[in-house]
């Protein structure tokens, strides 16, 4: 396992509120990592920083074996570098079909001219079918994404992430609003994805985290409070005080 993403000494302040405070995290490849912590601990802000949505006041975000800094890059350039993100609220393109949603995410050249002259190919279609199978939407390709159930939308968004073929997936609360059966399927998808890539999952539900069976990072007030196996961190006195105990 080599280091893929290295966040070191990062701080962000919003109107005087220190959302991230000297945060340092390393993510390897491949790796599955869960990130937990109370509301306002900086979990989502961490993802905002890595994906370029928020610029930190200080610190470094280093990516890949060529040690590129992500801080000067635009959101789209970071996405093209291999970082995919799933938002807390499922955000798929509701007016378009499942197939169109996946096709848009499929790893291909992203320039306007490339896209304009893009021709649908057999490989592309096969890849879309394969992804749809993976996320359990094989029979729903011609359906409008807006007509899917909440859980199916979450899966579609995960499918769009996988279609980008990223090296790092940042997944924000994938199981929110899902039935127990849907949660189980989601765990399987994420675990399979993490066999070859780095996957970071933000989740509140401890049962879900336990099923992931991976290293856990606990954030509190914008910094890492504890890191290790779930059993290890849940026995940590500080973690119990600030998060579990309440």
């Amino acid at each position, binding site marked *: 396992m080599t280091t893929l993403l290295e966040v070191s000494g990062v701080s962000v302040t919003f109107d005087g509120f220190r959302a991230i405070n000297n945060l340092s995290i390393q993510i390897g490849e491949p790796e599955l990592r869960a990130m937990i912590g109370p509301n306002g601990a900086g979990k989502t802000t961490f993802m905002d920083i890595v994906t370029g949505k928020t610029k930190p006041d200080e610190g470094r975000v280093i990516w890949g074996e060529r040690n590129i800094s992500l801080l000067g890059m635009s959101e*789209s*350039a970071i996405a093209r570098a291999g970082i995919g993100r799933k938002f807390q609220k499922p955000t798929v393109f509701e007016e378009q079909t499942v197939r169109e949603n996946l096709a*848009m995410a499929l790893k291909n050249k992203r*320039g306007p001219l490339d*896209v304009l002259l*893009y021709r649908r190919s057999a490989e592309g279609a096969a890849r879309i079918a394969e992804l749809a199978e993976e996320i359990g939407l094989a029979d729903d390709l011609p359906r409008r994404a807006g007509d899917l159930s909440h859980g199916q939308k979450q899966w579609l968004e995960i499918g769009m992430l996988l279609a980008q073929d990223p090296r790092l997936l940042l997944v924000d609360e994938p199981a929110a609003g899902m039935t127990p059966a849907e949660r189980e399927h989601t765990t399987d998808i994420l675990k399979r994805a993490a066999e070859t890539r780095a996957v970071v999952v933000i989740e509140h539900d401890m049962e879900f985290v336990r099923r992931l069976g991976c290293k856990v990072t606990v954030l509190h007030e914008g910094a890492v409070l504890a890191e290790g196996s779930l059993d290890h961190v849940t026995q940590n006195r500080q973690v119990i005080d600030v998060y579990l105990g309440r």
Partner: protein
Amino acid sequence: MSKPDIAPRRSFLAENPSVMWFLGLLGLFTLGVTVLAEGFGLALLSTSMVKILGMTLCLCLIAVAMDVVWGYCGILSLGHFAFFGLGGYAIGMWLMYARTQGIVVESLANAPIPPTQEEINDAIATQIFGVVGSNELPLIWAFADSLFMQLLFVVLVPGLLALIFGWLAFRSRVTGVYLSILTQAMTLALSLYLFQNDSGLRGNNGLSGLQNIPGLLHLPQSTIALWFFWASAAALGLGYLFFAWLVSGKFGSVIRGIRDNEARVRFLGYHVESYKLVIFTLTAVISGLAGALYYPQAGIINPAEIAPIASIYLAVWVAIGGRGRLYGAVIGAAVVSLASSWFTGGGAPDIDLGFYTINWTDWWLVLLGLGFVAVTLFFPRGIGGLFDMLVRKP
């Protein structure tokens, strides 16, 4: 799914029957008008009617462009009629210059001493700019004697203005209503500038006599009108085909994505600003071309045509016709602009209520406003949406 062994054009039309329907109906309409026109066949349609229909086709073309930039890409531009006007001015400069040159050369031909080139140039400048108290050709008229250059400007001036404006606006991530206000400010600034006498484009007099095509003065207007009608129909057909192709594939998928959730498209790795810039500039260029075909039929262009209200009407046409469907834009532009000239041109009879007479010249805007509100409230998909209901009923 397209089969790779079929030519793209054929498979595109086969996959998009609505485009085929549209082109067929446009062809039938063109044929019908030609047969009925004064300049060709049965002379049941007056030349001025042929011109109005030709101009309406140009308005349909800019409405299609507006639908692409607003209905598909979500940029509510209140500046596309400025691009339309700039295209009109660019071609109008050549029309006016070349025609004036012809008149001047002819009148000086009988002078006892043959005029020098300088005298001819001065005479042309005085002829065109006397009305704003000037006898010099402004610098922007440097290429007015060249049809080729002015045609180039029809594309370049709106294109470059849109490119520079769009680049500045989109890279600063100005979106939504703020962008609309910005485009409206650009339009207002442009029309106020053109209203000035020293703008170099004859201030509020604008350019006139554009219906007289230099080199074709021996032809009757009925023939010229028909030619321009055909050119407008061809431009609408080609423009429609081009935009339908543009929005049908993956590119269309991306720009509709930008309309619905710009940030999500960005995180998929697409450089959203580039896509907006491409769409904004491309539609501005098509708007300029539509304007260049419109104003020789209208005969006159002045800064009032560029005023922000024109661009707002454009948005109203597209909204009434139905956003996000190209035929909706065509229906909206045709129905509303023709109704507008019927009501305000004295075509509609006044209604005498006894205590009050409804004079449509004054009340048309009220009717249009009510229509717009009604469509927004009760048929958000516009007139085009009614077609969808008919076609997609199982």
